[in-house]
């Protein structure tokens, strides 16, 4: 999968690239308006991460150009502005999603996976990981073709893990993904623990290996043990 990172902050851009490369994506980056335009015109990408505030031009006009050229690249807007106007106009112009800074890289990764899924696979959206099969259209999970019942939060958690398989995900990131701004950190840790416990139990009972590993003092990792 090819990702284009259009972001003028070099540190941020390289962090994102590092993380995504370890996830298995192929990454390219552009740090200003003109190189971004050049790259989008010359190449196709599975997902473009677009920062709106760019030196040399407005990121939204790149989006407009992409749509005008009928390009099928997915677009995820990342912006520090967090302005409702920008959010609305971005989505109206055809962006697939909008993520405001600062965000956790694991959140970014999960959103990119969602954008690519939506764009690439018209029809069924099946994610497979080892023995797990997740159907994102019907929102069902099955192990060896046997369905297992998950609560909404457990399903979201599982999807999040699979999108960031092999990565260490901090509790903060999980809390933000599941509850956004509604909860303080201290409140959410207990809940996370409970949900993880239940999810683990259901997966093991369904016949899976325990993919969820605790990383002490930090968070969790979803991978083969």
């Amino acid at each position: 999968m090819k990702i284009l990172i259009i972001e003028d902050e070099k540190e941020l851009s390289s962090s994102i690239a590092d993380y995504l490369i370890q996830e298995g994506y192929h990454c390219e980056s552009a740090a200003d308006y003109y190189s971004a335009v050049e790259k989008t015109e010359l190449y196709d990408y599975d997902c473009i991460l677009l920062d709106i505030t760019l030196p040399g031009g407005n990121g939204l006009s790149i989006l407009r150009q992409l749509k005008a050229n009928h390009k099928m690249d997915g677009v995820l807007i990342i912006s520090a502005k967090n302005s409702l106007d920008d959010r609305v106009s971005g989505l109206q112009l055809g962006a697939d999603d909008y993520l405001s800074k600062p965000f956790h890289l694991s959140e970014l990764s999960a959103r990119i996976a969602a954008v690519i899924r939506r764009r690439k696979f018209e029809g069924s959206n099946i994610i497979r990981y080892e023995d797990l099969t997740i159907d994102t259209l019907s929102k069902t999970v099955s192990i060896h073709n046997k369905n297992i019942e998950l609560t909404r939060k457990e399903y979201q958690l599982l999807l999040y893990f699979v999108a960031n398989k092999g990565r260490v995900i901090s509790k903060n990131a999980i809390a933000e993904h599941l509850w956004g701004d509604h909860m303080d950190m201290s409140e959410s840790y207990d809940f996370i623990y409970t949900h993880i416990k239940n999810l683990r139990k259901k997966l093991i009972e369904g016949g899976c290996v325990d993919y969820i590993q605790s990383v002490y003092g930090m968070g969790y990792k979803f991978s083969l043990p």
Partner: protein
Amino acid sequence: MKLIAQYNRINIIAILFVLMGGSFCYYFIIQRVLIAQLDDSLKVEEQEIINYVNKYHHLPDSSTYKGQLTSFVLVPHPVKKRFFSTDVYDPADREYKSRRVLLFPLSLGPKQYAVSVSKSQIETEDLLTLIVMITLGAVILLLLILFVVNRLIVKRLWQPFYQTLQSIQEFDLYNRKPAQTIDTSIEEFQQLNVAIVDMTAKAIRDYDTLKNFSENASHEMQTPLAIINSKLDLIIQDHGLDEKLMKQVQGMYDAVGRLTKLNQSLLLLAKIGNNQFVAAEQIRLEDLISEKLFQLEELVAAKHIRIETHLQHTPVRMNRYLADMLLSNLLSNAIRHNVDGGKITIQLDTATMTICNSGPTLPFDAALIFDRFQKSDFSEGTGLGLAIAKQICDNYHFRISYSHRDDLHFFTIWF
């Protein structure tokens, strides 16, 4: 009252005064002129009689020649010459008719006569009446024409003003278009139009400046936080990190999280204060409250809080984001500052909304509760939640207040 009506009224009163006053003067002047004219012709008669008497040494015939009556009366003493008007009975027409009389002394030999020469005053009076009628008619006509002119033409003259007024009323800062004005040849309206266009353009510029400022501030502050966060995300991938380091990283994550929230809250406060949330829609508050409770259900369940709601259909015209924020802040406060097994009661109707929760008493003065950064020590929040809630309420001229009764905290909003 409308300007035209006001103007008309003053106009008409002034004109009436002037015309009435003028008419009276006019009447009396004309009357005097006409009577003086009559008197002059009587004087001519007087002279003729005197000449006759001087020439022929006897009185002429009393005649009713040319409508004038002459009479000679013997008197013991000479009379004083004078003019006067009198009514004389006319047996033919059986009515009194007024005449102008000149009485003067005449001596013929030793005899003294009082001679009266008179002419009919009726024609004079008729003339006067005619003149008064014409004048009155002219006055009425003038008033009528003024009225019509005021109605039709003045209204048309004011048209550019009404158009400008309308475009001011239609001016919407959110649409970012300066007020439109129509060209006009009237200097005052031209000036008005220029002033309005300038003013609205400036308002739009100021709004954009403010908006850009808060957005740029957001960008500048959030970007370094984003960088730190992303580096932390990468650091924890390193398998070599031991527990102690992991704990430090966790601490950093939390700190960045708090900074981010703080930053966002402060910017939100500024934006609300700057009126940057203009877009409003009809919101069903009762639905929004239910939604929020659903989102917070895990928190509620974890603290074993009982929730009681009395929600009536309450439509409010507000910005959706602000409404969401307001309810979020109030409800999560009610949960956070509650005890295990506590209670929350929400009452909503078209006049008020009251959220009441059990919980420990405030460790600070209740009057300060809506101040920024006012919070209890055990709370992890930014201390801005209620300040934001109050700012939103101020924006919509809602009144919000806090009170404490029977170990319960009450937050009430009056719409």
